[in-house]
């Protein structure tokens, strides 16, 4: 049996015990933050958790075909789940960080649009190469009809493959995934930046302007780190490849939301207590 024909070992359901343990850890971390830090720090941690959930949820939308996609054996983009999502999300973080002075809402949306634009261009170029470089039309292996356009899919799958290219639903999924990733990464960055901007001048006994580069660097580094943690967690949840929101694997996202919340809380409390205690 080929790798793409194999059934995934993990089920789609939510394990109640694990979910409860995860929620308890989350509450304990939030309680610890409330006891140890200021209200700004608690709000920042909640922001980091929401950002992490957005990233983890967004990764499930990104159509990734891995190695089989590189041979036109399976639909999706021919690279790894976590890495493609990171590429899009970090491109969004780049734009969001630039717009940080414009306020939280504008910065987060700018970050989301930056991630979405990166994915829109990348998905378009993937189809360009498939159609004009390889002469292969897009076809999904998971659904009979594209849920958005209604185009039938099975007769466009070439013999012996699971499908290829990016049907329109996968394209839209990629853009949505990029938007969630970019917005989540930017939210984490801005939340951490607020904490660092407040705490670092006192810590170093320096002017706010003097420590600003350190605050930006620290917040950026932690945002990238927490982004990668959540992207990799989601990749483990997906196990291999996913076509987008129409793929049955997409239904696994509730598991990842709990996992992302806990992982972001653990990373977030470390990032905040570094300066807030």
């Amino acid at each position, binding site marked *: 049996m080929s790798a793409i024909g194999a059934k995934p070992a993990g089920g789609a359901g939510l394990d109640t015990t694990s979910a409860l343990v995860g929620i308890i850890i989350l509450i304990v971390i939030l309680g610890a933050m409330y006891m140890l830090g200021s209200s700004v720090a608690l709000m920042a941690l909640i922001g980091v958790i929401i950002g992490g959930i957005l990233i983890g949820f967004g990764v499930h939308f990104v159509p990734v075909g891995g190695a089989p996609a590189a041979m*036109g054996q399976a639909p999706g983009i021919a690279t790894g789940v976590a*890495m493609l999502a990171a590429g899009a999300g970090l491109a969004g973080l780049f734009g969001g960080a630039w717009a940080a002075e*414009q306020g939280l809402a504008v910065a987060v949306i700018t970050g989301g649009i930056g991630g979405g634009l990166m994915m829109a261009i990348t998905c378009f*170029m993937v189809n360009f190469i498939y159609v004009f470089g390889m002469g292969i039309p897009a076809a999904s292996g998971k659904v009979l009809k594209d849920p958005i356009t209604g185009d*039938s899919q099975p007769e466009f799958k070439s013999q012996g493959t699971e499908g290829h290219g990016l049907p329109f639903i996968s394209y839209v999924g990629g853009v949505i995934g990029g938007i969630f990733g970019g917005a989540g990464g930017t939210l984490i960055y801005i939340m951490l930046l607020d904490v660092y901007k407040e705490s670092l001048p006192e810590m170093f006994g320096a002017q706010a302007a003097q420590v600003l580069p350190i605050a930006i660097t620290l917040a950026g580094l932690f945002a990238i780190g927490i982004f990668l943690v959540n992207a990799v967690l989601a990749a483990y949840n997906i196990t291999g490849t996913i076509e987008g929101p129409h793929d049955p694997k997409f239904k696994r996202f509730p598991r990842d939301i709990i996992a992302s919340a806990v992982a972001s809380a653990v990373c977030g409390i470390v990032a905040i207590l570094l300066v807030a205690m």
Partner: protein
Amino acid sequence: MESIVFGIGITALAGALATVAGAAEDTESNIGSQGDPNSQVQLAPQMGYIHRIFNKAVAGEPPAYGLWIALGAGIAWAFMAMQINPILAIVLGCGLATFIQGVYATTAYLGRTASLAKFGQPVYVDILKSVTTVTMAHAFVAIFTTVTMCHLINAALGHPFPLPLLGLIWGIALGAAGSATGNPFYGKERQYQSQKFGAGVPIAASGNIVRYAEAGERNSLDNGWYTAKLGGPASGVCFGLIVFLELWRTVLFEPVAAGWGAIVVGIIMILVFAVIDRYIEVWARKTYGPYTTPEKEASS
């Protein structure tokens, strides 16, 4: 007005640098066989097909390029802090990062190929000597152009992130764009050149990569020559568009309506790309036609 013209000029230059970076990145990864298609290079000896293709996919392209460009940018940043001229600092930083890439390529090829010894795959020392330096040369072009682009974004456009952090972000994005666009062309069109054009590779053919060239055995330099014709430039256009449009919408439209201008322009651009993508998808369906007659169950 002058600042806007200056910003657009820097944006265009950054976009041009990104285009070269994308093309060099994809060609480097194809010569070194680092993308997802390398799974077939690793698989081939296990199926009895001994070959002379390079094999260095220990990490995916995005993390590998994140490392090399962050290294190049970090070293250049340190040299600049020592008051060394930025151009010299960037060249030195990228040169040192390229040596790290060379060490990576060498150890990856030796390690991965040696692991195939039980299937009879030899380690070719002449391949190591001739291909490693070519991947290093392409890697230098990709690293240098991306670090220079990051320096422009930081120093001329005023992005708040320091150079090494920008290097990490754009390095990962470069690897993601290059592998997404270039991998199918290298994987399907080159490694499986003997398969029918206009169809995916049947799963049963996995591992049966093309191993012979016009004269003698095919090597990775032949693959670089081939993919540099379309996969490389397309990857360059992809990364160039990403960088140029992201900077363009920010430089020109962020001052409009307190940042909402850039958001609206971004949404419009996403919609434009969606329309073009849909047009291409429909064109391909009509032009290439279905492989089989539509099933009644599927169409009902």
